[in-house]
């Protein structure tokens, strides 16, 4: 470790706890991977306890890893395309890197090995010009959002206007956060927006900040998106020069490799310089968010839609990330009720080979059988299949990739990304991963009845969406491919409702 360099860098680092993650990221880039000594030096500088910095450092995947490390994505799509063959002694394994259209994906430092190409359509291809947002009253904007029917594109699908309205009802100062921590396996759409239309995103973000009368705007971006970061910074410069950020303190917060930080309250914890462990709710971020202030958190794509809606040229549509066994993986704008087949044939170059399983909207959205190819991908229609539309990340898995393997990989992902705080998520996901792996060898680690009880406990008692939703794909798989689970024994008979 270069002690002089460290001293110089430390001197420039702010001492507020909210800057801890940022400081750690900078130390990693400018001095080296965070060692216990570096951690302690930063703790002393920031007047934090050594353990605080140790806890935060170890929570994230990348802080103790060199910046030029080789990172191999082993998300389900990459795994299905042989990513694990690329793991050699030095490479580290990371969950979905958000470049599923290019699977299998390897990052060398910040660079995507083999370069990045885009396959897309619609507004993503239009010129990313800088426009001054229209001057509208807060009520007008909320009313127009309400009229548009826009819902959040991050996964939960909550009506956007309601969130805005809820934050507006709380006393200021208020905060707006752009959730750019895209990490749901198979999801690439936010990266497409940030790399192709960063100014459009900022337009939506600035509108949000003006409408809720926020004084601070943050963009929480995952560390792996180096290109998006550069383009956002350039776009922010343009905005600043154009005077559009006057009175609005704006900053980029860079993550450090933790899927859970995409969860709103985990993100808040992360931004406040603590481990990204979700908070207990209530209170909700709209009431008490960043540093206890009313906070509006919107997904990247959602804000792009907001900008388009207020420009007045929006038709209800969303961005579909399509990857896996298709001809032209990419990110496509299509209607909200498109079917899988329309999406794959009409945009993504058709199926390659015979599909075995299709994930409609990210890891927690569930798993569909090929029989569902003609179902519209709406919340209502998918509910009948026990699935959700999630973040609209369609992943097509070929026959050669068994649904059991898909399920095992999915549960492994949840297990590794669990923040560990609550029992059902920390232990349930690991147990289910183990159950799937044992099934691949024809063995039963638990009985079907016990698995069902554990799934119930996960759904009902997990603190956040990660643990609550993780059981979906398992239940789907029980239903669609019962033969794979035969070793677990029969499903428990529903007890008749008591009189």
């Amino acid at each position, binding site marked *: 470790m270069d002690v002089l360099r460290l001293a110089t860098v430390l001197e420039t680092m702010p001492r507020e706890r909210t800057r801890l993650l940022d400081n750690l990221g900078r130390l990693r880039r400018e001095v080296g991977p965070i060692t216990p000594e570096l951690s302690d030096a930063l703790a002393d500088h920031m007047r934090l306890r050594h353990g605080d910095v140790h*806890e935060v450092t170890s929570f994230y995947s990348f802080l103790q890893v060199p910046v030029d490390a080789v990172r191999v994505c082993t998300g389900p799509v990459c795994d299905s395309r042989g990513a694990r063959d690329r793991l050699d002694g030095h490479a580290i394994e990371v969950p979905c890197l958000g470049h599923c259209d290019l699977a299998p994906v390897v990052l060398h430092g910040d660079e995507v090995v083999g370069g990045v190409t885009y396959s897309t359509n619609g507004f993503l291809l239009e010129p990313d010009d800088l426009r001054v947002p229209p001057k509208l009253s807060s009520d007008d904007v909320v009313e127009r959002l309400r009229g548009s029917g826009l819902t959040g594109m991050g996964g939960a699908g909550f009506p956007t206007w309601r969130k805005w309205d809820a934050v507006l009802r709380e006393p200021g100062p208020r905060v707006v956060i752009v959730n750019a921590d895209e990490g749901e396996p198979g999801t690439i759409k936010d990266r497409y927006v940030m790399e192709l239309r960063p100014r459009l995103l900022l337009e939506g973000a600035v509108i949000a900040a003006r409408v809720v009368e926020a004084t601070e705007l943050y963009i929480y971006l995952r560390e792996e998106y180096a290109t998006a970061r550069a383009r956002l910074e350039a776009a922010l410069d343009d905005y600043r020069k154009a005077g559009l950020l006057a009175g609005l303190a704006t900053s980029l917060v860079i993550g450090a490799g933790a899927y859970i930080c995409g969860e709103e309250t985990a993100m808040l914890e992360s931004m406040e310089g603590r481990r990204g462990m979700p908070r*207990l709710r209530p209170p909700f971020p709209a009431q008490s968010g960043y540093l206890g202030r009313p906070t509006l958190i919107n997904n990247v794509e959602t804000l792009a839609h907001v900008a388009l809606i207020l420009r007045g040229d929006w038709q209800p549509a969303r961005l579909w990330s399509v990857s896996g066994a298709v001809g032209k993986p990419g990110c496509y704008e299509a209607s909200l009720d498109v079917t899988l087949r329309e999406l794959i044939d009409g945009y993504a170059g058709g199926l390659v080979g015979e599909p075995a399983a299709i994930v409609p909207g990210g890891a927690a959205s569930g798993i569909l059988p090929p029989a569902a190819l003609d179902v519209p991908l709406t919340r209502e229609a998918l509910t009948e299949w026990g699935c959700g539309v999630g973040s609209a990340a369609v992943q097509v898995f070929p026959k050669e990739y068994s649904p059991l393997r898909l399920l095992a990989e999915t549960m492994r992902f949840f297990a590794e990304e669990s923040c560990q705080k*609550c*029992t*059902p998520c920390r*232990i349930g996901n690991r*147990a289910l991963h183990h159950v799937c792996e044992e099934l691949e060898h024809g063995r039963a*680690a638990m009985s079907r009845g*016990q698995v069902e009880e554990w799934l119930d*406990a996960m759904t009902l008692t997990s603190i956040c969406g990660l643990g609550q939703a993780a059981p979906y794909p398992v239940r789907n798989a029980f239903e669609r491919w019962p033969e794979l689970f035969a070793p677990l024994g029969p499903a428990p008979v529903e007890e008749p409702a008591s009189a």
Partner: protein
Amino acid sequence: MIEFTLDGRPASAQEGELLVHAAARNGVFVPTLCHDDKLEPYGGCRMCVVGVEGSPRPLPACATRVIEGMVVSTNSNVPQLQKTLTEMLLSEHLNADPGGRPNELVDLARELGAEAPLILPDAKREPYSDRNRLMGYEPDTCILCNRCVRYTQEVMQCSALSLEGRGPEARIVPTWERSWLDTECELCGGCLSVCPTGAIYEKFLEGAGVEERQLEQTKTTCTFCGVGCQIDLNVDPETKRIVKVTSKPEYVSNEGDLCVKGRFSFNFVHHPDRLTEPLVRGEDGALHPASWEEALRAAADGLKGVIRRHSAQAIGVLASARLTNEENYLIQKLARIGLGTNSVHSCEAT
């Protein structure tokens, strides 16, 4: 007071009271593992979830405050959830008793009839060894309730333990896996006292087969500073030796907290250097063992001799803050009317 409904019966609670407390006062015991009244609500273990009307999911009673009209249920699916959560914790609980401390998880499992349906293949954690001689830590007993770490953060506000990593790798270790002797740890053992499973324990009891529940506890007052911490001396009924020192949250002066001296400095009581015989200086100038009769006579004669040769005013008596009020009272009485001098004082006269 506010009114709410608990398992179909009317109940009352204080404004802002935690559900777990309100339930207990109304006769409903809700099990907890990660909760400690000293610490901020955490809601991690989920053992205390209860049904609350209007909430799509059960809520943790340790972190939910009662509000007027709340309808709470601890029957329906709650017992099954408690049992499943206990099974989950047992599935990575590889060592139930590293150091003789009570294990609340094992107690709970017995009560709920819960057994681990499987042992997780990654349950085994990296063992932790530490050259300190006071506190041991068995990671395989830890249930990650984080009470110990939160104690260091919220109560001691020191940096001794960290919750490290996430997912299957998550574990609790002394900060950066150093020896406790090399962290800011003050060896107070507070982490040990809040651990519900005995994963942190008195190291000198490791493998001794001494179980806390079998020890005789005598409540007394600590001897190390003016705070007057109330402590329990835990005595092995066979050897009649102090085996460890504990305290309880309900003790007023210290609320169950102790410092390194109070918790760990008791071996001096049984130290081989303890004086066990009276000694009298002989003609040869050396101290020799003597009977009590001889020693007391020598002491009295010596003091009387000084009074005779000089006066009572030539005698100084130094009492001690080590002694009880009763002893000091008798000492000053002895000085004043036994020896005839008011010159009784002590080194702790400040």
